[in-house]
């Protein structure tokens, strides 16, 4: 049931947006009764949206870990993770609708205090994917730097640096991320605190 309703919610959002989607539409889209939709989400629309959002975020995080897993070195791992995240997010139609027509729902989470919270959560979730190359503190800083660059390029794209392009992303990582990293065993751990 939750998965059915998740897919239906994403379909509704990609057509009408978040504001105009209600639980009744989602139930109809999923082909289930209104009553069973409310039984699955007693909190109503808000609870369903939070659940969908959490599942999509988990999907993005998983795709990043999966992409980094087989990488031979840190640079390729970081580039693969960035590209996987960009491709995964670009594939969600609902995200495209919201960015275009309801940006006010997204921007508060990606700027100022909202960006601080996002950076902290995202770097904690992603750092473990690179600890086979880096000590935990350097991994955390490197993940944070990558997330900062991702958000910056996502909101303000540079035609020479498309995040969905593996070669351009690898170039970005080699030019601007790897130089800031001092490797395991060296005295400076890249910690700016």
């Amino acid at each position, binding site marked *: 049931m939750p998965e059915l309703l998740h897919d239906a919610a994403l379909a509704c959002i990609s057509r009408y947006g978040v504001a105009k989607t209600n639980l009744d539409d989602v139930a109809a889209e999923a082909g289930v009764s209104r009553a069973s939709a409310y039984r699955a989400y007693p909190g109503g629309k808000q609870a369903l949206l939070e659940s969908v959002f959490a599942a999509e975020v988990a999907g993005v995080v998983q795709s990043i870990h999966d992409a980094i897993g087989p990488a031979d070195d840190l640079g390729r791992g970081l580039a693969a993770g960035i590209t996987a995240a960009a491709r995964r997010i670009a594939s969600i139609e609902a995200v495209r609708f919201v960015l275009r027509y309801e*940006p*006010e729902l997204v*921007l*508060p989470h990606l*700027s*100022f*205090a909202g*960006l*601080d919270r996002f*950076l*902290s959560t995202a770097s904690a979730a992603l750092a473990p994917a690179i600890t086979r190359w880096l000590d935990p503190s350097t991994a955390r*800083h490197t993940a*944070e*730097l990558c997330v*900062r*660059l991702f*958000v*910056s*390029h996502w*909101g*303000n794209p*540079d035609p*020479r640096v498309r995040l969905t392009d593996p070669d351009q992303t690898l170039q970005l990582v080699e*030019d*601007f991320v790897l*130089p*800031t990293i*001092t490797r395991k065993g060296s005295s*400076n751990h*890249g*910690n*700016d*605190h």
Partner: protein
Amino acid sequence: MGKTAVDDIAQEARLSRATVYRHFPGGKDQLIRDAVMWETAHVVEQLRETVAEAADLEEVLVETLSFGHRAVSTHEVLQKVLQTEPERILPALLSETPWLVELLATHLRPAIAATSDRRPGLDIDAAGAHLARLVLSFITAPGDRDLDDPEVARSLVRTQFLPVVVPG
């Protein structure tokens, strides 16, 4: 901002409503976008004066981070609107971002070019744009770093900014 009408603005500026609309045919949204642009341009101009004396790239970056962070965190109108109506100001700020990144990059590139021990073959254009993006990211969302402390700003510059230009 929600309660500020074009009429109020006209009255405050001692202009007629018609005059305001002649200059801002887009109404309040256009007024907000233009106000954001003037205000950012003003801050960048002050920044230019502040860093004019800076000795090298490290000093330029440290002063840019400190000044930029102070400008953002002590801007009363910006902070108030971010609290009460982020949905109005953030799209305006986002649409100004490409221009602002380029403005900051333009101001950083001469200091990169003047760095004699920079990486051989460094693309100054791209490095300037990258450092400008980082500056914006850190001044608006510094995390737990207290950028009002010049030593914190310097440490950040040495670990996250300078190694891109100068090999460690």
